[in-house]
């Protein structure tokens, strides 16, 4: 078999082929498509500026059908058969780990947009870097700080948690739970539900009857919506309600009948972020796709930015020894991205934190941390 190292430095007009496997169909297809758009936007913007090292960037995207077997054989194909120059990560923690292993065994750099659960960084990967500000468990850090900082009279005393059984979603809720419990806020409901749950009235009944002061959902999109509707059907009114992912989606308000008032959510990205590359990204993305980018798109774009920075700095992009240099560079440097400057620890974990947004007056706005806020946090939350 021919191996990649032999080809030497490619000629200047040879494109740099970036191999990606994405869940374009199956359970993760919705975010998968978002990630795809982010990558596409990145390739387009890079190529408009003359490519990398003077070579155009070409994406080779395979569909892994949201299936771990497939994701592995996809990367196997990309690296072994298609001889792509670099690979970047797929979507969902479940797919990131097996994919990263293939990349590692072929010695490839592996920057990924979606493996946010802390377990990803416990596997001992030396080539993996998560291109976002923080891992799931740290998403609510600012909120925890805020709650625990409230004066004793206002501070909530009980909390209810409901999390999807998914490393990412659960990670967000449990990150907050850990900190609040340490701060003395009692957990009265702690529910974990399987990813395919659609019937939430039972969980909602438990939460409502516990009369918890705050409710925290470790959710993806659909389950978050269902849980909120089920809670509203039971006329439950908490003082604070935080859900991951769902509230930041553009369809969210309509989905729950516009009863959004006061709902909180963490986010790693906002279109309003002042970083220079973000202004360019939002503008060009919007012209390309007609709508502004969301978090998934931004994460993919960030991934592209990290890889581009490494290739430009090291001056090569092919399989073989070059990959080792790329990995070393990423480990030792900070990259300016649409989500701000990113750097990583030895396990590939980013060293940042998420912002907290809240629905205020029918619009979602950043309320935490104080230096980035667009509006003041409303607490206790008005009735929904």
């Amino acid at each position, binding site marked *: 078999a021919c191996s990649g190292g032999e080809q030497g430095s490619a000629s200047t007009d040879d494109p740099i082929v970036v191999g990606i496997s994405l869940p374009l169909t199956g359970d993760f297809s919705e975010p998968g498509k978002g990630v795809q758009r982010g990558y596409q936007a990145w390739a387009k913007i890079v190529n408009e500026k003359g490519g990398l090292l003077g070579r155009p960037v070409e994406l080779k995207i395979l569909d892994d059908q949201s299936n771990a077997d497939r994701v592995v054989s996809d990367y196997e*194909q990309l690296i072994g058969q298609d001889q792509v120059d670099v690979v970047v990560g797929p979507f969902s923690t479940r797919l990131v780990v097996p994919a990263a292993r293939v990349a590692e065994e072929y010695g490839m750099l592996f920057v990924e947009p979606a493996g946010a659960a802390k377990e990803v960084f416990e596997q001992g990967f030396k080539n993996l870097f998560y291109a976002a500000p923080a891992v799931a468990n740290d998403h609510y850090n600012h909120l925890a700080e805020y709650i625990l900082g409230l004066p004793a009279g206002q501070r909530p005393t009980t909390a209810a948690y409901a999390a999807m059984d998914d490393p990412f979603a659960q990670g967000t809720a449990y990150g907050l739970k850990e900190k609040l419990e340490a701060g003395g806020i009692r957990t009265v409901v702690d529910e974990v539900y399987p990813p395919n749950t659609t019937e939430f009235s039972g969980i909602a009944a438990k939460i409502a009857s516990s009369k918890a002061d705050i409710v925290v959902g470790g959710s993806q999109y659909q389950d978050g919506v269902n849980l909120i509707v089920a809670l509203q059907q039971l006329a439950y009114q908490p003082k604070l309600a935080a859900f991951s992912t769902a509230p930041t989606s553009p369809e969210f308000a309509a989905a729950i009948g516009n009863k959004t008032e006061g709902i909180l959510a963490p986010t790693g990205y906002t279109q309003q972020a002042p970083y220079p590359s973000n202004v360019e990204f939002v503008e060009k993305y919007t012209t390309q796709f007609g709508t502004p980018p969301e978090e998934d798109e931004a994460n993919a774009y960030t991934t592209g930015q990290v890889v581009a920075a490494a290739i430009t700095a090291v001056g090569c992009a092919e399989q073989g020894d070059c990959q080792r240099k790329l990995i070393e560079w990423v480990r030792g440097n900070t990259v300016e991205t649409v989500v701000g400057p990113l750097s990583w620890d030895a396990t590939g974990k980013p060293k940042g934190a998420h912002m907290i947004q809240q629905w205020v007056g029918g619009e979602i706005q950043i309320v935490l941390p104080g230096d980035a806020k667009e509006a003041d946090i409303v607490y206790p939350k008005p009735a929904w």
Partner: protein
Amino acid sequence: MPSASDPSSTTTIRRPTVTVARAGRVVLLVVLVAAVVSFPSLAPNPYILSAGILVLNYALLSTSWNFVGGFTGYISLGHGALAGLGAYGTGLLVTRAGLPSFLALGVAALVVAALAVPIGYAALRVRGASFVIVSIALVLVLLLVFQSWASFTGGSRGLTVPRPFPDLLRPEHHRVFWFLFAGLLALALLVWWLIDRSRFGLGLKAIREDEDKAESLGIPTFAYKLVVFVVSAGFTAAAGGLYALWFGDLDPVFQFSILTGSYLVLMALLGGVRTLFGPLLGALVVGTALEYFKVEYGGTPLHLVATGLLLALVVLFMPDGVLPAVAAMLDRFRPAQQSIREVTAAELREQRESGVRAETELAATRPGTPSTRERA
């Protein structure tokens, strides 16, 4: 001493086509073995080799499935779960009990085989549709358990199985596993073949046709079913375990999936459940087709539609599988089968009587002769 209960009076007619067919089969076998042995060196890159391993894995699984499905006619959509148990068993034994990889694989296969006794004991009590439903339920319930019992199985965080050969480069690793899978497949085929030609096998087929009748003929149907289910579970679990060692990452959602189970059925059915190499052929076709659909319709869920159509076509037009369909096609060129007698009752009578006369001349009383009705 000739007696009435020993009616072997006719001579067996041996057909010349039998030997031709046998020779053909030997040639086929040699070609097959040669192809399997040379594939790793022919594969242009590790990806092709890994794709080949996936097909072998499918072939192994659907051959294992065919122990139950082919012989007894019990259609299990739950074999994916047995493979998942084998995989998790192997993984857990390596990570939690610290057993060496292949010892863990063997132990896991045995444990699953042992577990198959109570599972089979419950599931095999019901026939037909209920069994299918139970087999589906097996997958779903194991999925729930392996997902919820996170402290032991890792839950939705998955389980990472350490490599048995940490020093091998990935292409080498694939090559080793290719031969391991091929070896296990050969073993499964051998056992299937042995059962197929045995009295045990004939008993199983009788169960497939009419269970109560088989029972009344003295076939301990429940024990037979259970034994073959356990054998099937053992092979399936071994396949799952081998896969775990090769693949490395286990996730309950993918290990306990009805879709996997149904792929196995599709493969076996396509190739022909009553034939030794049916599932193997089916795995080759379906494995390739799945890959092709993915390339052709990647990015849209139409690959699902294509898979569904393939299954529907097989069920509708080739319910016995490709191999039997081909055999039937060849049969078309032979004279049509006669179920109606060629001789009238009168001629038959004559034949019989002349036969008797001839035999009496040889002074050999043969059964079939009307005996005088006298009582001791």
